[in-house]
């Protein structure tokens, strides 16, 4: 019979009461773990958003925000100026081109229609210097309802009074010359087949095609197509994740400038700042260096900022809830142990009368508390495995109503990582059959974090148990004679 064995025995002395305490503890611990998992899921999402766009600034020509607006184009010299601004780590120039199918364009020209089409789909401003060129490619987006709607919109603007049959209309294809392997928002391109273009700062007859655009035109890596009668070879395919984004192609920046016959001219500059904290100051410095009459500096995808801040508040709430639930668990332990010490006052007196040191008695009570906490943790983790899924999805869906920019539709990648139940727990069982939703959420919280959460529960439990354990030290051995 050791101290531990006695503690386990004592924990089961009153089974009904122990059961009730374990149940209440399980709720508190389950809530704490759920909140920690949710907190980590949200934190991971915030980090992901910050990493993707948080440090990117976009420079457009002044007054170029509106479709077909005026203003002087950006130049290579301005790119050099931007690169010299403190905390700017990279400057990538882009040159946007608009491509129309050659046959379609000829037909429309014959019908005397306008040259302009609906703006680029990917969300970036079209830019005033967008040059329209012809291509052998056919747009991947058919003249469906969208085409008709845009068509109708254009009619009401009255740029021309002629009504055209919808079938002749398809969206233009956006071709962008890029100075690095990034898309028009500064995000690295996801190349799904083939390879990149290598050196993006020299002319090349290679191009990257969006997956749907390539499919529509029956092109593969190595196939060729033409822009303004110049032949390009498909070096690779990319997936931008959106229909509009995939109805696009990328060539190197000098190639695009040559196609447009505008060497040195840029549509936009994508400026990356070295860290999140420097974004505001770098933005101000960049605007000053380029001049407000020459360029507009915007933070890439502003709506992401609101996404991040709303996620941040969710993160804070879940952290507070975690701490509160943890504190509640500690308080439950404290009150139960104080009650037990009072109840076993005389028995503690007996132990002291036969020579038990204070630390042995204190340890026995702390261990007894930990036995109860361990049981509460096992049940609580089972509760968390059920609750954290719905809590996380509730957080995610409420978040997706506040912003359209957050990548809410996608689950957090991570496959079948499962809940790391072994850490600090006598049993890992309840985690195995976690729902798919939980798997994706817990996968985003590292095993270290879960272990830390359980360690925090035990830490709080020890603190909660220490107070009554110290109370036992103050019980005098003469208590053994009480009531005799």
């Amino acid at each position: 019979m050791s101290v531990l064995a006695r503690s386990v025995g004592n924990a089961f002395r009153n089974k009904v009461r122990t059961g009730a305490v374990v149940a209440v503890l399980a709720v508190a611990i389950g809530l704490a773990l759920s909140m920690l998992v949710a907190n980590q899921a949200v934190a991971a999402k915030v980090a992901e958003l910050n990493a993707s766009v948080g440090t990117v600034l976009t420079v457009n020509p002044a007054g170029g925000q509106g479709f077909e607006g005026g203003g002087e184009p950006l130049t290579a010299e301005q790119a050099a100026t931007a690169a010299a601004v403190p905390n700017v780590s990279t400057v990538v120039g882009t040159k946007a081109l608009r491509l129309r199918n050659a046959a379609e364009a000829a037909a429309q020209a014959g019908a005397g229609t306008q040259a302009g089409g609906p703006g680029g789909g990917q969300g970036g401003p079209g830019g005033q210097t967008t040059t329209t060129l012809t291509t052998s490619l056919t747009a991947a987006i058919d003249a469906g309802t969208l085409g008709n709607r845009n068509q109708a919109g254009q009619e009401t603007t009255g740029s021309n009074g002629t009504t055209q049959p919808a079938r002749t209309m398809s969206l233009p294809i956006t071709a962008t010359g890029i100075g690095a392997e990034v898309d028009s928002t500064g995000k690295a391109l996801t190349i799904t087949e083939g390879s990149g273009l290598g050196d993006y700062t020299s002319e090349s007859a290679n191009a990257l095609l969006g997956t749907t655009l390539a499919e529509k035109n029956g092109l593969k890596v190595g196939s060729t197509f033409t822009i303004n009668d110049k032949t390009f070879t498909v070096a690779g395919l990319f997936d931008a994740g959106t229909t509009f984004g995939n109805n696009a192609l990328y060539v190197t920046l000098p190639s695009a400038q040559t196609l447009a016959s505008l060497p040195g001219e840029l549509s936009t500059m994508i400026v990356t700042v070295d860290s999140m904290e420097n974004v505001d100051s770098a933005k101000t410095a960049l605007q000053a260096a380029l001049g407000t009459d020459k360029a507009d500096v915007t933070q890439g995808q502003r709506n992401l900022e609101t996404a991040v801040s709303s996620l941040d508040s969710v993160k804070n709430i879940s952290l507070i809830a975690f701490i509160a639930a943890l504190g509640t668990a500690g308080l439950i332990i404290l009150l139960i142990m104080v009650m037990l010490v009072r109840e076993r006052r005389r028995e503690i007196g007996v132990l002291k009368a036969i020579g038990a040191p204070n630390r042995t008695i204190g340890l026995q009570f702390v261990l007894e508390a930990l036995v109860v906490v361990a049981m509460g943790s096992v049940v609580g983790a089972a509760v968390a495995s059920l609750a954290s899924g719905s809590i996380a999805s509730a957080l995610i869906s409420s978040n997706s109503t506040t912003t359209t920019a957050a990548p809410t539709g996608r689950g957090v990648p991570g496959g079948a990582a499962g809940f790391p139940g072994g850490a600090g727990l006598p049993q890992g069982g309840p985690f195995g059959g976690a729902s798919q939703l939980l798997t994706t959420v817990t996968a985003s919280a590292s095993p270290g974090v879960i272990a830390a959460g359980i360690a925090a529960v035990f830490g709080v439990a020890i603190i909660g148990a220490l107070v009554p354990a110290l109370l036992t030290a103050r019980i005098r051995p003469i208590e053994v004679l009480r009531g005799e």
Partner: protein
Amino acid sequence: MIEVKNLVRTFKSGDRTIKPVNDVSFELEQGTLASIVGKSGSGKSTLLSLLGALDKPTSGDVVVNGVSLASMPDGKLTEYRRRDIGFVFQQFNLIPNLSAVDNVMLPMEFAGVRKAARLARAKELLEQVQLDPEKHVRRINRLSGGEQQRVAIARALANEPKLILADEPTGNLDEQTGEHIIELLSSLSRDHNTTILVVTHDRQLANKTDRRFRLQQGGLTEEPARSRVAAASG
């Protein structure tokens, strides 16, 4: 050898001060079986608790083999209770959810005795106090009063104490069982050279001890040994 020197213990109850132990002095040689008789509330338990360092005197001292309890810090007093004293209580005071053997092993566990050694000694002690072997692993609350008191005596003997303090050990037992317990204690004091001080208000039992004390209004007086032995035998 135990020397009790001018021991005083006072309690304040309201504005009244009571002195259950008032200037008590006596000496006991090692191996003596002694008894204290006195009316209920006369301070017998209070005196015993002072000798066993369960409580601290208001003034005076207890000197055990030349070492003064008054000068000992709490940690040393705990060690004194563990090593030098064995307690036997009227209400047994065993740990109810442990077995007989586990209860006897407890003081040895606190003294750092290895598990195998303490198990062997616990069984040996339970045999000495004549507890049926099949009852060794029985939970305390499934044993009779007499059996519980045997376990309590075995526990008191666990660390081979110099002094056993028994506070009305037969008070909750029938006459015959009580007699057995007293016989057990008296044989232990002979065989192990253990000093035993028994509090009792059973005169018959007191008559079987080497020395008899009476506690009255806080004062201790010794009754002459010879006349009682003569009375008992005659």
